[in-house]
């Protein structure tokens, strides 16, 4: 199975080389066999005797990450869609994409996607799933941005990336939480212990994380906004990723975990509500679109909402309907996208306002579109698969009595009505799509290209898909035993048997369907009259605005925030730094009860030492007040010489010597460097600045004082010094202990101290000399 999954990506590696021959032969032909073979491979599993299969390949066993593929009914359904529609899309693209295009790029992205998507639906290991999941987002990003010189493409690519990847990260958190709770990374094993998950404190978190992942990917309200902009991708991509497969990854995920969450009121609530809202909003918005692909995009959103809602319902019939609709949607929506692409290709526009009356020019396309749109609308005709799943959806929406709790009950009552409303709009846009494009007035002057029918090979893919629509419509139970029941079983976690039939008698779903058709027809006919509603109800465009505002703000406010504090002012940096260090360290010291003023074991105080200390303190303070260069430098010198004297007093002659030399040289360097610099000016900072400076300095000084005294008073251990005095001569061979330490015990320090000086010397040399060379130029 691993070969089936990785075949496309392995092929993707050679695609750039194959694409060099594109002037001889369209790259698509060379690579078409790959998805086809994969499809055939998966078809071989279809059958009533299907049993789920697992194949394991280790990857990072120590982290419990493996490439373990689990082929059950659900994943088989998806695998077939991915490879089947993938093959058709490649075929279609051969005619859709000109050889002058960057075919290598296109097919590489597409095949990366194919592997990623197969990986998502087949992976049993959650982290492998996540890895594939992210790759679907990335390949989608690249495909949307395929025509990257178009501003809209870049916009759409980034938008989809941001939304789907954020969902991906959320999914990751959910999956990690699941592994923490269940102690396994295998989905099968997780599904085996739903109680552990449902009862853990992580449950709400897991649910929200996973839902976010699924909703963003499957364009559920309010994350649906990326999908219309994804239409900037070449149409084959829209047909493939953004209607048939990738957007269903979220559906797949929810279906996969239904076995765990199914029956949980919160799961029901969230999925049903968001699903149905998505359905209604999506279809409502689709009606107002003017771009063919935009209509289809919103249509996809609404259809995905419907499937999501059905998964939320969680009853056996609902799940079966969901699975069934996944298949059906792929067939009619895939074909419609391809038709839209053909129309675009042949007329040069997708603007429905410019189109019309194309039936005469493109009869074949029109026929295909007719089947596609009517199936999508759920028109009750026995050869349209869309109707069956739509009616099952109505049926399922009416059977939601299993849930307790006031609010949940209210939701259960409201859902059927919302389902009908959504379906009415679906009907409206479907009709609008078909009639607006193929019927009505032909507007020759508005079309860039004179329309004519597409070549047969380009029509082949939609023909195959529409055949699917009709075949399933005629024989709705054809795939039941071999495929759909297995899939539904996998979702429901129990046997689901369902006999699909056209006629059930006069039962509520039928009335609902009729309501949809009648009201829908009325709305279609009166569309011009009520269209103004859209001006009053702007609909979900506000979410787009929120997104745009958010992204703009992301940069603008980042810029504002960052440059508020990163304004290059050393003083501000220092103030912030010191304030944080003082506050946090002080607090930590305080709450850990570390302050210790119980003075113990200190040397006696003598007057002259106090005086020296006073001199040093005064000199230090004087550095602040003096306004004369030399005075400032000399006063610092006083502190330094004072320190040397303290070294003298406290038995550190070596230190005193070094300090003296260093201080003198430093003062000399100060004089040398600062003679040419301006004299000190009066400090001109505002009183507030000065106040802050004073508080910060005193605060930090106080912290140091408290820390030092506390540390000094908390001498827990003897120092290691005795060892040095005892062994300095014996082992170190010298009687100046400090020297022995420096050159022997801690010789390494000294070696690198010299290195620092070496570096400083070279750095100073570089500073001085580099300029000269520059000046000479």
């Amino acid at each position, binding site marked *: 199975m691993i070969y089936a999954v990785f075949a496309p990506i392995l092929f993707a590696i050679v695609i750039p080389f194959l694409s060099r021959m594109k002037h001889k032969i369209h790259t698509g032909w060379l690579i078409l066999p790959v998805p086809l073979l994969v499809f055939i491979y998966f078809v071989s599993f279809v059958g009533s005797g299907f049993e789920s299969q697992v194949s394991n390949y280790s990857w990072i066993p120590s982290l419990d990450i493996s490439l373990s593929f689990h082929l059950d009914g659900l994943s088989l359904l998806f695998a077939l869609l991915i490879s089947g529609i993938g093959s058709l899309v490649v075929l279609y693209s051969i005619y859709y994409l000109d050889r002058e295009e960057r075919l290598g790029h296109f097919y590489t992205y597409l095949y990366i996607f194919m592997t990623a998507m197969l990986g998502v639906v087949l992976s049993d290991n959650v982290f492998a799933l996540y890895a594939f999941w992210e790759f679907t987002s990335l390949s989608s990003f690249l495909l949307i941005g395929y025509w990257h010189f178009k501003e809209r493409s870049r916009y759409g690519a980034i938008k989809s990336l941001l939304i789907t990847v954020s969902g991906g990260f959320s999914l990751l958190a959910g999956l990690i939480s699941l592994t923490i709770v269940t102690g396994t990374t295998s989905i099968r094993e997780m599904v085996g212990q739903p109680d552990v998950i449902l009862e853990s404190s992580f449950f709400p978190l897991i649910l929200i994380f996973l839902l976010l992942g699924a909703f963003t990917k499957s364009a559920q309200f309010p994350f649906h906004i990326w999908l219309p902009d994804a239409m900037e991708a070449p149409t084959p991509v829209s047909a493939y990723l953004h209607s048939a497969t990738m957007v269903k990854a979220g559906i797949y995920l929810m279906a996969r975990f239904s076995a765990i969450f199914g029956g949980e009121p919160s799961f029901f609530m969230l999925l049903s509500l968001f699903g149905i809202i998505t359905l209604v909003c999506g279809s409502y918005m689709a009606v107002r679109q003017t771009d063919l692909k935009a209509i289809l995009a919103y249509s996809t959103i609404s259809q995905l909402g419907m499937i999501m809602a059905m998964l939320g319902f969680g009853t056996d019939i609902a799940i079966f309907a969901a699975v069934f609709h996944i298949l059906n949607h792929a067939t009619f929506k895939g074909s419609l996208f391809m038709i839209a692409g053909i129309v675009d290709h042949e007329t040069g526009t997708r603007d429905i306002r410019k189109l019309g009356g194309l039936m005469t020019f493109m009869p074949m396309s029109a026929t295909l579109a007719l089947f596609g749109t009517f199936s999508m609308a759920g028109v009750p005709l026995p050869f349209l698969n869309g109707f069956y799943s739509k009616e099952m959806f109505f049926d399922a929406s009416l059977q939601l009595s299993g849930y307790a709790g006031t609010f949940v009950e209210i939701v259960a009552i409201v859902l059927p009505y919302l389902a009908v409303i959504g379906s009415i709009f679906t009907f409206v846009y479907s009709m609008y799509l078909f009639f607006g494009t193929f019927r009505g007035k032909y507007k020759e002057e508005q079309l860039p290209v004179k329309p004519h029918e597409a070549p047969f090979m380009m029509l082949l893919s939609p023909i195959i898909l529409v055949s699917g629509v009709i075949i399933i419509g005629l024989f709705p139970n054809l795939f039941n035993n071999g495929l759909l029941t297995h899939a539904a079983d996998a979702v429901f976690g129990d046997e689901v048997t369902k006999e699909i039939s056209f006629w059930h008698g006069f039962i509520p779903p039928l009335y609902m369907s009729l309501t949809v058709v009648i009201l829908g027809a009325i709305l279609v006919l009166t569309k011009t009259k009520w269209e103004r509603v859209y001006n009053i109800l702007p609909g979900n465009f506000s979410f787009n605005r929120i997104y745009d505002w958010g992204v703009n703000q992301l940069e603008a406010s980042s810029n504002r925030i960052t440059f508020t504090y990163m304004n290059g002012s050393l003083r501000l940096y220092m103030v912030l730094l010191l304030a944080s260090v003082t506050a946090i360290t002080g607090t930590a010291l305080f709450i850990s009860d570390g302050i210790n003023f119980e003075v113990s074991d200190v040397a006696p105080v003598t007057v002259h030492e106090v005086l020296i*200390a006073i001199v040093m303190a005064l000199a230090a303070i004087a550095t602040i007040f003096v306004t004369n260069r030399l005075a400032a430098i000399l006063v610092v010198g006083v502190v330094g010489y004072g320190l040397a004297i303290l070294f003298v007093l406290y038995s550190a002659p070596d230190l005193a010597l070094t300090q003296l030399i260093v201080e003198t040289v430093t003062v000399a360097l100060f004089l040398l460097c*600062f003679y040419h610099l301006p004299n000190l000016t009066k400090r001109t900072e505002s009183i507030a600045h000065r106040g802050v400076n004073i508080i910060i300095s005193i605060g930090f000084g106080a912290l140091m004082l408290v820390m030092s005294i506390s540390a000094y008073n908390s001498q827990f251990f003897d120092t290691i010094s005795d060892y040095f005095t005892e062994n300095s001569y014996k082992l170190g061979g010298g009687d100046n202990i400090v020297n022995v330490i420096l050159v022997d015990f801690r010789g390494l320090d000294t070696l690198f101290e010299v290195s620092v000086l070496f570096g400083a010397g070279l750095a100073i040399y570089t*500073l001085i000399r580099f300029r000269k060379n520059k000046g000479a130029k």
Partner: protein
Amino acid sequence: MEILMAILASILFATAIYNLLQKQFLRIIIGTVLLSHAAHLFLLTMGKLKRGNPPVLVEGVTNYTDPLPQALILTSIVISFGVTSFLLVLAYRTFTLNKSDNMDELRGSSDE
């Protein structure tokens, strides 16, 4: 005595920081020099003061001051010296190139 020296070192720290918060190079660098003085004084103080003779072995003397902090300070003094020297030259060069010794005028803008 240690307490007194701790206070002194803290004062040095505080004045050092006050200087670091100023605009002119000279004051800022003076701040760094004071800072190193403060640090070395702290280190010396923390090793206990006046606990004996200079740590140079003399026959008959057994009580010596803790030599380790002294060794550490010595290393640190030399290192600080190197750094300060570099800093001084850097400040000088920065001034000559930017024609300003005022840190406030040397913030730089985001467009550079």
